[in-house]
């Protein structure tokens, strides 16, 4: 490895960013190819997410219905698509965990705990959007922007920092 390149990788921040960008680059090229070939996986994930959302609403006694991937709370409904499954958050999180300087075991713990945690957060934000859309429709646009774009990376960063503080540093 040339000296200048070695210096870049030896700086923890720069090294992480370069590794993160490379890993994310690989993931985002592979993902469309993989989902084109095995699209049933995406279909199963969206259908499963819609079903879980519906069961959650029924569990709390809400007036819910499910029609394909359309979850209705009263007269307000959301169509669960690929973007609603948390898969895109998981892709970024995976790159961040794998790029961080930690042992393979700790990275495995990060992925095994972090991805389901992001999925749970994802279910919660769909739930909040359904409740807001049904009861406070004037706030829906704000909440949708907040939960989908504004806090996407904040949610990933929070889970990633939680992993660093609770797993990587604690067991070091």
């Amino acid at each position, binding site marked *: 490895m040339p000296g200048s390149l070695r210096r870049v990788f030896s700086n*923890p921040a720069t090294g992480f960013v370069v590794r*993160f960008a490379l890993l994310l680059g690989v993931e985002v090229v592979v993902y469309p190819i993989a989902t084109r070939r095995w699209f049933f996986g995406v279909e199963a994930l969206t259908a499963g997410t819609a079903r879980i959302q519906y069961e959650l609403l029924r569990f709390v006694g809400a007036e819910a219905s499910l029609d394909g991937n359309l979850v209705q709370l009263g007269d307000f409904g959301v169509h669960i698509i690929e973007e609603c499954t948390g898969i895109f958050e998981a892709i970024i999180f995976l790159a961040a965990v794998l790029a961080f300087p*930690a042992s393979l075991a700790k990275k495995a713990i990060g992925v095994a705990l972090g991805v389901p945690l992001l999925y749970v957060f994802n279910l919660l934000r769909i739930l909040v959007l359904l409740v807001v859309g049904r009861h406070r429709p004037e706030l829906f646009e704000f909440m949708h*922007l*907040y939960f989908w774009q504004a806090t996407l990376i*904040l949610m990933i960063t929070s889970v990633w920092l939680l992993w660093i503080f609770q797993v990587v540093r604690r067991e070091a």
Partner: protein
Amino acid sequence: MRLVAELVALSLPLTWLWLVWGQSTYESFFVATARPLLEALGVTSVAASPARHRFVSYVPFVVLMLVTPRLGWRRRAGGILLGVPLIFLCHVGLVAVESLSHTRQSPTRDSFSLVFPAAMFADAFPFLLWALLAGDVWRGLAARASTPR
């Protein structure tokens, strides 16, 4: 926990501010400023780009720069000043990829394969910038992570 509370406390009002004022102002600014650059890349229409939904990425970047503990104020302010034009360039790139990947003149067979990587990089860009600009805090994190106890 405190960090998460700070993230929420800061991101909520900033997103609200973005929605009521920032979004339309930025879109007007973007159309006026990025047009020459985009036209040079072959993009003719900016106004209808679906990439505009991702313009809010200034909010998570500013929030991360502000809530990061033990980061000097000069580094915070300098980082934000440096990050804002870089995010603008990221938006230019995203709009260009989205527009060029599915125009009527040059239809792409699989636009998702082109748009998806650009959209994901745009989503991750505030995190990437923060990781780079908050480097001092990083050194502490990575060093402690790799120090045996």
